[in-house]
């Protein structure tokens, strides 16, 4: 009986491993091609014309803020000074208990006004609406706490323009980022429903007055691992899924959406930790149900810099929350999975995320438990075990290195040789413990779900401070 179970599991793991890595490698090749095309397009980029053109659509930038006192001023400064023809910034203070509101009032000379906002999406009560005397395109909405999704919905209700760009309060958006992320929409306003840009780790960068002046590596080792991880997730994963029009997520840190579409589908879901994933999946569902041609696009150029956790507790909390969000979304939209009427999204995207991303941690941990048992009970030879582990390690390293090579060939944001060498070293090392740790945390999210956990957890933000390195 044990032998049968172990053999069956062994075959399953082999097949699973084979398919998963084939997909990763395939995506890496797709990403390579896509990013090469993207780099070549810079030779005939029309961003300058877009900036000067009265035809570029206006955007409402939404910044939900909860207890973001350390960094909110820098974030708002970076948004207000974005290079874009017409945009407004709406900060939604989601019932902060720290000095977020005071910091904003002091810095931007806020005055209360009566600005009616739509009630098409229900949200918690708005306590007051303020405009900045320094900049009439900067608004602050003070509301009762309802969570990030609720705050974003309030922003969608208040937005003046046809497009809304959701950003995180701890993020710094590059000057041209909004132009770049809006370009697919300018090219195809009737087709492109949403776009998103890349999120990079700001820890270790020199940030001044809401601008990243010098890109550097964090001093914290945990943060360096995350730099590598983000490259893999964004430059390989998201570029790949965009090709199949099956992008599951546009990062909540930086995403551009058609306002009317967000309103039409009822806004962000407030009862999940993964409101950004769930919104995009619901968009796919809505548009495919209506049989409306559309695209949801990831753009690798426009950059949003964000602070990542530097201690195990905060990182664990973040990963568990992200995975919980994914599980909640997949469960909510389970009727779409494997359904041909949802096209590539239903037949490829959702099954992949279910089988390899959502359930992957459980399968991997089961493997870590059963493989030693199989070896100790003589059902698995040492040579096979070592060969398999060796292959898993080499493939992991290869994929991390491939992501770093993509970054180097495509973008070269890390100019110092030493930093690049460090990243490659961490790309190797992350397969020797860090990835296993994140897998364990992701597996714990199943326990969180069963226990009904819904909180975001706490991360001590240092803030992308004025002057000096973050």
């Amino acid at each position, binding site marked *: 009986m044990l032998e049968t179970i172990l053999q069956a599991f062994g075959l399953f793991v082999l097949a699973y491993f084979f398919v998963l890595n084939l997909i990763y490698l395939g995506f890496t090749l797709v990403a390579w091609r896509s990013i090469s095309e993207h780099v070549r397009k810079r030779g005939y980029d*029309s961003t300058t*014309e877009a900036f000067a053109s009265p035809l570029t659509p206006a955007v409402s930038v939404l910044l939900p803020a909860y207890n973001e006192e350390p960094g909110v001023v820098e974030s708002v400064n970076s948004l207000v000074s974005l290079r874009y023809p017409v945009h407004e910034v709406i900060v939604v203070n989601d019932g902060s208990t720290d000095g977020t509101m005071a910091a904003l009032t002091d810095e931007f000379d806020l005055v209360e006004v*009566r*600005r009616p906002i*739509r009630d098409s999406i229900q949200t918690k009560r708005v306590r007051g609406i303020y405009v900045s005397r320094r900049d009439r395109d900067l608004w602050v909405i003070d509301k009762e706490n309802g969570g990030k999704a609720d705050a974003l919905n309030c922003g969608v209700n208040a937005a003046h323009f046809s497009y809304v760009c959701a950003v995180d309060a701890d993020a710094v958006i590059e000057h041209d980022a909004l132009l770049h992320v809006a370009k697919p929409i300018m*090219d195809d*306003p009737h087709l492109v429903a949403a776009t998103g840009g890349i999120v990079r780790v700001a820890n270790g960068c020199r940030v001044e007055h809401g601008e990243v002046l010098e890109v550097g590596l964090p001093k914290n080792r945990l943060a360096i691992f995350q730099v590598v991880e983000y490259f893999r997730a964004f430059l390989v994963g998201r570029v790949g899924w965009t090709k199949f029009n099956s992008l599951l997520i546009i990062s909540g840190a930086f995403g551009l959406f058609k306002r009317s579409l967000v309103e039409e589908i009822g806004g962000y879901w407030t009862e999940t930790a993964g409101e950004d994933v769930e919104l995009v999946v619901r968009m796919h569902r809505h548009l495919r149900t209506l049989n409306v041609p559309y695209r949801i696009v990831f753009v690798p150029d426009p950059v949003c810099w964000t602070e990542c956790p530097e201690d195990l507790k905060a990182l664990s909390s973040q990963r568990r929350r992200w995975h919980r969000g994914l599980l909640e979304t997949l469960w909510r939209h389970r009727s779409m999975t494997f359904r041909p009427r949802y096209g590539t999204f239903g037949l490829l995207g959702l099954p992949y995320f279910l089988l390899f991303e959502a359930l992957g941690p459980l399968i991997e941990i089961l493997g870590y438990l059963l493989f030693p048992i199989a070896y100790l009970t003589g059902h698995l030879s040492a040579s096979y075990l070592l060969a398999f582990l060796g292959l898993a390690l*080499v493939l992991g*390293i290869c994929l991390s290195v491939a992501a770093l090579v993509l970054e180097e060939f495509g973008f070269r944001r890390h100019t110092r040789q030493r930093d690049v060498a460090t990243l490659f070293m961490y790309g190797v090392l992350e397969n020797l413990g860090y990835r296993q740790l994140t897998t364990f945390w992701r597996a714990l999210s199943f326990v969180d779900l069963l226990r009904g956990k819904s909180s975001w957890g706490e991360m001590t933000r240092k803030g992308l401070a004025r002057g000096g390195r973050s």
Partner: protein
Amino acid sequence: MLVTDLIEVVSLAFMGTTIVSLLALIVQRTVLTRSQRMVLEAERRLRPLAHALVEGELPELPRMNRRERQALGRLLSRYSEFLTGAAKQYIASFFEKEGLVDVEIRRLRSRRAWRRATAAHLLGDIGSSRALDSLLIALEDRDRDVRSAAAMSLGRLGAEEAIVPILDAEVLRQLPEAVAGFALLAIGPEAVPELITLLGHDNPAVRATALRVLGLMGSARDADHIAERLVDSSKEVRARAAIALGRVGAAHHTTRLLEALDDPVVSVRAASAAALGSIGDARAIPALVDMSSTDVYEAAQAAARSIALIDPDAAISNSEEGGPQLQAVADMIRIFGAIDA
């Protein structure tokens, strides 16, 4: 045993690939860094030369090696994006003398789309009218980026003969609307007669595009033609007509715009209200006050803003009866003195 051997072989293959990639990257980075440094150095040295050339002060170019010529070409391309008139002609002459115009025209026939698109883009920077025919052909290229780059360049070259092909391509969705619009704007008022003709086209998408561009570059002379489209069968055309009229219209169009405030479509009502604000005729205020208190969000907001544009004092005095939108606008006037147009 066989499976184990296979796994080992695959592992070695991937390890080899990883090492090769790393080595390639090290080489590429070293070469690129050196090359970039040399290019930047060349550009720094040649900048005074480029400035002199642009000002027409340089009768003959000094001897330069290939890298220097490329650096000078890059500098001039960048300047050309922002220059017009004689300066642009001097740049065009430089590229002609260097034979670069012919090089880029030949590249428009490259098998690779990105090379064709880059060539189409550069020909706009170069500014040589010899490229017009080739760029017009490139408007029908099978690759969208090539068509877009060609359209932008034709716009920068002020090619009137490109007006109809660009509009046709936009209507057939072969060109992004923004690209077609930019190109037509760049061509300038010469495009207006053709656009007015297209206001009577069968296809509402054509009429809508023509209105969009007319609103941006037309003049008061064109307003009557635009006003006729306020009663078009297409809601998009009616809305675009209202927006365009707001930019080029005059007080005698107020009546027609007031009638459009009763349109069943929100976007048309909102655009008409906004247009009335731009025109600035105080006769519209009572209807706008009513609209700002009774209509849906977008239309009410447009009406309130228009009242403030026409007469800020009227916005304040009517704020209580004008509803929340007008109250918001009145607050803005009290704080800033006026609202942004």
